[in-house]
């Protein structure tokens, strides 16, 4: 078997490693964070606004909480909102796209026009409006972003299904009198899910970036829960004297979003090589 770096290239392999580390830290936050209780939100006024040092590598915030711990706890919110946004979007987009592509006709027209309506709004604006209407909170911000996200999956799923519908083995099942639910579940979905799941995995990055943008605007998770977007916003008041407050979560968002983007490019290049028949 070839090494990971050979298949993805160095940037892709490093990105994948960074993403896995972020997931690992998020999962194991209570054990890897140097000050777990502060990461979870407990204040420690005596240590407030300490600059980066050996004890607090990224300094402390206005309530004296260790920034390393806060950033690690923030990864939990960011990654889980990224994952849930994609999951919710698939939950809506996949059935819509599959039904539209499979049955065609007026159902296709109807569903796709609804999809187009959602796509007609600028995504972030729609998300902000939705979040403002629903009120702050983790779940609400996830729903708000998912509302802008699902149409892409609906369109992708539809395109996949349209291509699969014409496959002779799908036609053969139809000619054997196999029912529509079984054809969709046995023949269409297993083949359509693979390209979609790759896209969905890569979308976790942009999704968490959007969720961070919402919480930066005060429409996401409420304190004391750690969240990168909201931390950047809180640190803004103390910038540039206490630059580390905004810089630490800002860098975390930047690195993770960049890692997802680079990994996506690496996977796309690889798929491109396949299509040309070079692999």
């Amino acid at each position, binding site marked *: 078997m070839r090494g990971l770096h050979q298949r993805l290239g160095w940037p892709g392999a490093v990105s994948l490693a960074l993403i896995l580390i972020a997931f690992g830290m998020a999962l194991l936050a209570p054990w890897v964070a140097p000050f777990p209780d502060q990461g979870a939100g407990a204040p420690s006024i005596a240590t407030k606004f300490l600059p980066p040092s050996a004890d607090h590598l990224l300094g402390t915030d206005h309530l004296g909480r260790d920034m390393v711990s806060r950033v690690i706890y923030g990864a939990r919110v960011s990654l889980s909102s990224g994952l849930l946004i994609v999951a919710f979007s698939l939950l809506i987009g996949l059935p819509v796209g599959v039904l539209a592509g499979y049955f065609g006709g007026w159902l296709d027209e109807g569903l796709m026009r609804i999809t187009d309506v959602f796509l007609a709004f600028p995504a972030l604006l729609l998300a902000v409006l939705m979040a403002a209407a629903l009120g702050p909170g983790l779940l609400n911000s996830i729903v708000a972003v998912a509302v802008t996200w699902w149409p892409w999956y609906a369109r992708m799923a539809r395109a996949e299904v349209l291509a699969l519908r014409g496959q002779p*083995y799908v036609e*053969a099942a139809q000619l054997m009198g*196999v029912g529509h639910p079984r054809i969709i579940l046995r023949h269409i979905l297993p083949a359509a899910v693979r390209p979609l799941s790759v896209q969905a995995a890569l979308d976790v990055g942009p999704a968490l970036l959007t969720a961070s943008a919402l919480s930066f605007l005060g429409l996401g998770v409420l304190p004391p829960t750690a969240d990168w977007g909201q931390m950047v916003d809180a640190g803004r008041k103390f910038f540039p004297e206490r630059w580390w407050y905004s810089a630490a979560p800002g860098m975390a968002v930047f690195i993770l979003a960049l890692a997802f983007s680079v990994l996506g490019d690496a996977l796309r290049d690889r798929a491109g090589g396949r299509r040309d028949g070079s692999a």
Partner: protein
Amino acid sequence: MTKPLLEVRDLVVRYGSRGLFRGQPRPAVSGVSLSLAPGQTLGVVGESGSGKSSLLRAILRLVPSESGKVVLDGQDWLALSPRELRRARQDIGVVAQNPFLSLSPRMTIAEILAEPLLARQGLARRGLQDRAAELLSRCGLPADFLPRRARELSGGQAQRVAIARALALDPKLLVLDEPTSALDISVQAQILNFLSDLKAESGLSMLFVTHNLKVVAHISDHLVVMRNGEVLEQGTTAELMSAPRHDYTHRLFGFGMRARQTAV
């Protein structure tokens, strides 16, 4: 004369034109009539673009027909509701051109052969494996193919699996759409012989569509020669082979040999 198993009368197939100001396109099938008696084999022959595939797809109701009638075993086939059609389709076995495309790449041979059985019986799973093995042996394949996938088989073996699947529900009619065109010459002969045996043993009625007249000549009782969506001539195989009325039919006999010369 006995009542025909399949009767097609004045069938017209026209693919819809898109756009408001486009004229109506020429029909792909314009007024084709043919009939197939039980236990007989009817060969439909024509070059690509002759409308033979459209005719077949219309008979199978994969594309809508504009007008005309298709009667299968006394049933007005084009009038069936989608629900009735689903049941009725189980009376027809279909073998497509390329077995590697018509057999799902994600399913084992056992699953592929179980699919038509499940479609008929709902979820009665008893005896599925035995029935699948029986079908395989009927088509000259060993039962240890069951856990394998189509891509692990040779073209001829895979096409036998496709035939086994088409026979799974004891169809009244076996429809073969260019069943040998994707196979090597030597394998083509094997499949054709196998189909002849099948016909002799079980008195199966077959509708055999191909561009290669020679392939279908030794298995068909009757032939229909199509060109430009119309039936050019039809009759018994012996008649057409000994005295083709049209030069086109004559040329179709030489298709395999002369294709290269005419192409240049």
